[in-house]
C-alpha cells in the first residue's frame, strides 16, 4: 500500500502542516486520508511552481538588471537555439509526468466504490440541505441558523457567522460513509474543505462520493455552486462523532421520528400549531417569502394578504405539499412531516393579518400525502 510516492506526499503534507496550516492561509490538511493526500499534492505542485518561478524570474530579472540599455549594454543577435528549445520542452514534460503519477493514484482512491458502512443521501434544495440516512428512516433538513440581525449588522456576529445550521449532519468516524447526491431544483455543490468532499448535486441525476473521517470534530463548509439568491447562505455542518455516540444519536432520532408520527393522529390545539408553525416558517419559508410574509416579487409571492391563499385552503395545502414545478417552491411532502405541514399552513393562514381562523390538523395533511 505504501508506495514511495505516498511517502513523498506524506512528507510534503507534514511539512506543510508545520508551515502553513493553523493560520487559515492555506488549504486545510483535513481529517481524511484523501484530504491529506490532496493537501500533499497541493503542496507538491505549489513547490514545483515556486522552484520554476524562481529560476525563470531569476533569469528574467538578472537580464533586466544586467543588460540595461542605459548601462550601455549591446544587444546580441541570436534568436534560435534548437537544443535549448528541445530541452525546455522536454523538462516540463518530465516534471508533469512526475506530478501526474501521484495525482492519478489519489484520484483512483477517490473513485473507490467499494461497499460502505453507511449510505447518506444528500439533496440540495434552494437553499438548504436535506440529509437522509438510507435504510434508517432518519431524514431531516439542515438550514442556516445565523440570525438575520447578524447579517444586517444589528447584532454582533458570532464566531461561526454564516457557517451554523439548525441540524448538522452527524456522521461516525472510522467508517466509510457513502454520499449519494442529487438536487430538487438547480445545481448546488456540497463542500466541506476538511473532508475534501466537493460534489455537484444535479437535478434528476445522482452523484456519488465517500468519506472516512479519522477524527471527531465539527467541520464546516458551504454550497460551492451558484444556486440563486441565497447561494451564500447555505452552509454545511458535519458533526463527526465516535461510533458508539453515533449509534446513540441515530436511535434517538428514530425515536423522535416515531414520537412525531404519533403526533399525527392526535387533535392539535391552535396555539400549539401556531407555535410550531412559526418555528417551521422561520426556518424553512422565510428565506424566500420573508419573515413578515411579504415575499419578494417577482420570484417569491407575498403570503400576507394573499387573496388566493386566504380564500382557498385546499389550494394552499396543495402548494405546500406538492410545490410548483419549475419554480423555487419545492414539494414539502417529503421534506416536512404532516405535523410540520399542518402547523406551517395553520400559521400562514393566521399570521400577519391573514385572519382566516382555519386550523389544519396533521391527520388531514397525512391523508393527502399518502392515501
Amino acid at each position, binding site marked *: 500500500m505504501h508506495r514511495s510516492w505516498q511517502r513523498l506526499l506524506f512528507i510534503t503534507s507534514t511539512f506543510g502542516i508545520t508551515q502553513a496550516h493553523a493560520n487559515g492561509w492555506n488549504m486545510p490538511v483535513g481529517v481524511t486520508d*484523501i484530504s491529506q493526500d*490532496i493537501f500533499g*499534492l*497541493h503542496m507538491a*505542485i505549489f513547490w514545483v511552481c515556486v522552484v520554476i*518561478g524562481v529560476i*525563470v524570474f531569476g*533569469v*528574467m530579472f538578472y*537580464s*533586466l538588471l544586467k*543588460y*540595461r*540599455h542605459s548601462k550601455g*549594454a549591446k*544587444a*546580441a*543577435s541570436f*534568436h*534560435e537555439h534548437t537544443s535549448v*528549445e528541445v530541452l*525546455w*520542452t522536454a523538462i*516540463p*514534460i518530465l516534471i*508533469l509526468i512526475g506530478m*501526474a503519477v501521484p495525482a492519478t493514484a489519489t*484520484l483512483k482512491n*477517490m*473513485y473507490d466504490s467499494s461497499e460502505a458502512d453507511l449510505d447518506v443521501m444528500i439533496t440540495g434544495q434552494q437553499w438548504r440541505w436535506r440529509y437522509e440516512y438510507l435504510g434508517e428512516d432518519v431524514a431531516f433538513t439542515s438550514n442556516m441558523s445565523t440570525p438575520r440581525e447578524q447579517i444586517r*449588522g444589528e447584532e454582533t*456576529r458570532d*464566531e*461561526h457567522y*454564516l*457557517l451554523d445550521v439548525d441540524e448538522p449532519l452527524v456522521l461516525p468516524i472510522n467508517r466509510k460513509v457513502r454520499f449519494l447526491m442529487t438536487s430538487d*431544483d*438547480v*445545481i448546488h*455543490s456540497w*463542500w466541506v*474543505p476538511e473532508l475534501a468532499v*466537493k460534489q*455537484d448535486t*444535479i*437535478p*434528476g*441525476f445522482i452523484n456519488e462520493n465517500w468519506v472516512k473521517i479519522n477524527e471527531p470534530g465539527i467541520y464546516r463548509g*458551504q454550497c*460551492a*455552486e*451558484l444556486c*440563486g*439568491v441565497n*447561494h*451564500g*447562505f447555505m452552509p454545511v455542518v458535519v458533526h463527526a462523532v465516535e461510533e458508539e455516540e453515533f449509534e446513540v444519536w441515530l436511535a434517538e432520532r428514530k425515536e423522535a421520528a416515531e414520537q412525531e408520527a404519533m403526533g399525527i393522529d392526535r387533535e392539535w390545539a391552535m396555539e400549539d400549531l401556531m407555535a410550531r408553525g412559526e418555528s417551521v416558517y422561520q426556518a424553512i419559508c422565510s428565506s424566500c417569502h420573508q419573515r413578515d410574509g411579504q415575499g*419578494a416579487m*417577482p*420570484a417569491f409571492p407575498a403570503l400576507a394578504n394573499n387573496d388566493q391563499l386566504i380564500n382557498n385552503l385546499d389550494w394552499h395545502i396543495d402548494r405546500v405539499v406538492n410545490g410548483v414545478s419549475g419554480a423555487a417552491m419545492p414539494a414539502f411532502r417529503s421534506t416536512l412531516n404532516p405535523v410540520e405541514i399542518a402547523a406551517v399552513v395553520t400559521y400562514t393562514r393566521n399570521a400577519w393579518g391573514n385572519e382566516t381562523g382555519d386550523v389544519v390538523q396533521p391527520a388531514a395533511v397525512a391523508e393527502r400525502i399518502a392515501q
Partner: protein
Amino acid sequence: MAPKLPPQHSLQHSSTAVAGGHSQHGHAAQPKGIMRWLLTTNHKEIGSLYLIFSLVMFFVGGMFALVVRAELFQPGLQLVEPEFFNQMTTMHGLIMVFAAVMPAFTGLANWMIPLQIGAPDMALPRLNNFSFWLLPVAFTLLLSTLFMPGGGPNFGWTFYAPLSTTYAPPSTTFFILALHIAGISSILGAINIIATILNMRAPGMRMMDMPLFVWTWLITAFLLIAVMPVLAGVITMMLMDINFGTSFFDAAGGGDPVLFQHLFWFFGHPEVYIMILPAFGIVSAIIPTFARKPLFGYASMVYATAAIALLSFLVWAHHMFIVGLPLTAELFFMYSTMLIAVPTGVKVFNWVTTLFRGSISFESPMLFALAFVVLFTIGGFSGLMLAIAPADFQYHDTYFVVAHFHYVLVPGAIFAIMAGVYYWLPKWTGHYPNERLAQCHFWCSIIGVNLTFFPMHFAGLAGMPRRIPDYALQFADFNLLSSIGAFFFGASQLIFVLVVVMCVRGGKKAPAKAWEGAEDLEWSVPSPAPLHTFETPPVFNRTHHHD
C-alpha cells in the same frame, strides 16, 4: 534615435507617402460628423471605434466589479441585496469578456493587421463596419436587462442551466438575444481578419514572415470561427428550453443539465485562449523592440500558439471535475490540461531568452509587457495547480479560481492591451504618450492588481466559495485588502484615460519609426498613420530568415 541593428526588412517606399492628399477612392464625398463614423469603412477609424467602445465598457464592467468589491468590503450585507449582487457579478463577467477584452483585441487587429502585413485595408471593409456597429446594439440590450422586471441575468457569466433556464429571470431571452448579436459581431470580425491575413499580405511576405501579432490573431480568428457557433447553439437551446418547451437541459423532460456544461465549456475554454493569444502576439512585438534584439524562437512561438489552440479543444471538462465525471474522463482531462503548460512554458522561456543579452530600456509599453510576463506566469502556475484533478476538488468554485483567472485576464490580457496601446499610440496619434503619467499608471496598476487579486488565492484556499455576497469572518482580512486594491486599481485606470486623451491632443512628436528597436512594417508609414496606407502594396524583403 540611431538604429543599432540592421533593419530586418527594407521597403520600396512607393506607397507610404500617400498621406491625405491624393486618393484613389474618391473620398471627397465622405460624410461628415456622426455619419462619417456610422458609415466609415476605414480600418483605422473602425479600429478606433472598437478601442473607444471597449474602453467605455471596461469602465462599465469595472463599476460593476466595484459594486461587488464594495459589498464584500466587510462581512454582512450593507450596500446591495444578494439578488442585485448576483446581477453585478454576472454583468461584470459578461461585459469584461464580450464587451471589453474581445473588442479591444479586435480594435487592435483592425488598426494593426493591415499595417503589419502591408495591406491597404481589411479585406471586407463594409462587413467590418457592420460587425462593429452590432456591438453597441448588443450591449445596450444587455445592459437594459438590468432595468427589466426581475432584473438582469443573475446566474453568473457561465450561465449554468437550469439556473439560467427554468429558474431564470424573465429578461433572459433578451440576454440570449444580446449574446447572439455580440457573437455574430465576433464571427464577422473573425472572417474579415482571416480573409485579410490569408489574401492581402504584401508581395513577398510569407506566412512565416508575419509578425506574431498577426499570427496569434489568425489562430484566434480560427478559434472564433470554431467555437462562437457552438455558443450560438447553446444559447439557442436555452432559448428553446425557456420559450418553446424543449428539454435540452431539463432532467424532467429527459434532458441533462450537465450537457449544458459540456457544450458551454467546449466554447468556453477556447474562448479564454481567444482572450489571451492576441496578448501573446502584442508582448512578442514589444519585448524584442525594447530589448533591441530579435524575438527568440519565432518559429517555436508560432507552433506553440497553434499547439495551445488545438489543445484548447481537448481540455474543456477540467472546468467540470466535480460534476461527477467518470474516472477515465477525469484522468484524460487532467493530462490534457497539464500538457498545455508545455507550449505555454515555451512561450515564457522564449520571452525571457529574448531579454537575455539584449539592450533593454523600460518605456511604458515595455513595463506593461514585462509585468505581463511575470503576472501571467503566476496565473499559469495557479492554472497548473488547478489542473491537478484531485486538488481541484478543493480549489473548484473558490476564490482560488477567481484569483487564477483574474491573474491571466487582468495583468494578462488587459495589461497586454494597455502595453499595445502605449506601444502603438505614437503611430495612431503622431505623439508619444506622456511617459511620466504612463509610468505612474503602470506602477499604480501593478500595485492595485496585486493587492486586489493576490489575497484571493488565500481566501480561496482557506475555503471561500465564489459568487457569495457575504462571507464568514475568517475571510474578512483578505476581502478587505482585495476591496481596497480594487478601488485603487479602478481609480488608476483614470490615469490611462488621461494619458490617451492628452496623447490624442498633442505631445512630443513621434517619427515614423517611433521606437528605436521596432522592426515591423507599421513603422515604415508616417506617424500619425495617414487615413490611407499601402494603397500600392509595399514589397517585402527579408534580410534574415525566421525559419
